């Protein structure tokens, strides 16, 4: 028998409710029954580690050089740390990212709005955090795009982030936004998050790490669930 060190639960008031009706697609895709609370068992406190090559494939940390030429758009470098709620780094975890191109168009075949594709930009990559929980990748600044949720609905520029963290319990998918974007206050997906926590998804521009004559720098730290203080016998 070993001791199970459970992770914290979802932080109250920091995440969007399943039913966020201003984001219309949630209306028929959200549960009506209350969630059933279960204790974290070995299943929830374990997760895959260090086998990323055999799963998603090798790391891609420069999204601007996937084609034969360079991607078109404003070159940026996005970096930050993956931390737990106690500020401890989350090392050797996979960070998967995907985004629209500079014109706001996804390479995905279902994205058919009238903006140009860039043959030299796919918009997906993945990075493994180092032993200090740091990650960094190069890309181009994504454009805003219309999405038909309501009249004149435009998604603010964003990069999708997917993180596994150390355990099933620490899974997170989020979106990183850019500072000062006037579309953020109008966006039902970002604003499904309680107002006091919305800022946690907005990166900050940083001149110190901006690279001379090369790339603007945005910093985005990501906080996964931390460990609960009370161990449980399994």
């Amino acid at each position: 028998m070993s001791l199970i060190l459970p992770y914290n639960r979802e932080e109250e008031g920091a995440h969007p409710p399943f039913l966020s009706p201003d984001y219309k697609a949630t209306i028929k895709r959200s549960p009506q029954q209350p969630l059933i609370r279960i204790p974290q068992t070995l299943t929830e406190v374990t997760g895959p580690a260090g086998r990323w090559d055999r799963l998603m494939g090798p790391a891609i940390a420069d999204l601007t050089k996937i084609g034969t030429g360079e991607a078109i758009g404003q070159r940026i470098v996005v970096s930050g740390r993956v931390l737990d709620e106690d500020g401890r780094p989350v090392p050797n975890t996979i960070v998967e990212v995907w985004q629209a191109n500079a014109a706001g168009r996804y390479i995905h075949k279902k994205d058919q709005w009238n903006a140009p594709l860039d043959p030299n930009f796919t918009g997906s990559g993945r990075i493994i955090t180092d032993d200090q929980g740091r990650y960094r990748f190069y890309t181009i600044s994504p454009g805003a795009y219309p999405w038909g949720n309501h009249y004149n609905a435009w998604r603010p520029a964003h990069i999708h982030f997917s993180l596994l963290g150390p355990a099933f319990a620490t899974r997170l998918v989020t979106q990183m936004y850019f500072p000062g974007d006037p579309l953020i206050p109008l966006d039902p997906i970002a604003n499904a998050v309680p107002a006091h926590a919305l800022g946690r998804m907005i990166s900050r521009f940083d001149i110190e790490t901006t690279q001379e004559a090369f790339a603007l720098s945005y910093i985005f730290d990501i906080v996964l669930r931390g460990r609960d203080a009370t161990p449980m016998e399994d």
Partner: protein
Amino acid sequence: MTGQTPWQTVGPYFHYALPWKGGADLVEGRGDAGARMDLVPDGHYTLNPNDHPRGVAKGQIVTITGTVFDGDGTPIPDSFVELWQANAAGRYDSPDDDRAELALDPDFIGFGRASTDADGVFIIRTVKPGRVPGPGNSLQAPHIAISVMARGVIKRMVSRIYFADEASNTEDPILDLVPPARRATLLAVPVGEGQYRFDIRLQGEGETVFFDV
């Protein structure tokens, strides 16, 4: 203490970024299983090229097929099911499962992703997991932990797949927390030799049980 970064939906365009080829075949990572190559233009697929040889995982091979439905009973084509399970011996391939007395299987990781197709159908090929400990002195029945994500699903929906023909379900400490009338939503039903059916209903009549973990 710092606050948790909030959840956001995966949106409709995750297919060229998350579900890798072979990701829904946990036995040997065959073919395109789990990916939607019909949605990714040629030359823009950056996930696992799946061109390296792999052994076959040990255990009883099972195939689980299901449809993800919305509250109107309409299949959801832009969703995926993420999987995490123990190997056939009941050991997790994770540094946090330190039970060295149970063998790891070099050919089994236990993590996968299965996209739904244009008809909302997903297919998982895996080995039946062994039993793993639960709270106290309990043993859990064989199960696969799942996260369902989709456009319109603003944060993951957590559930489990159990096997309806498994006798140990009656002593499972997690199933025991589910009202009896709703337990069937967590049971994959045998439909043939090694074949199971497991539908996921996000809302309404027969709504799948989702967990707060």
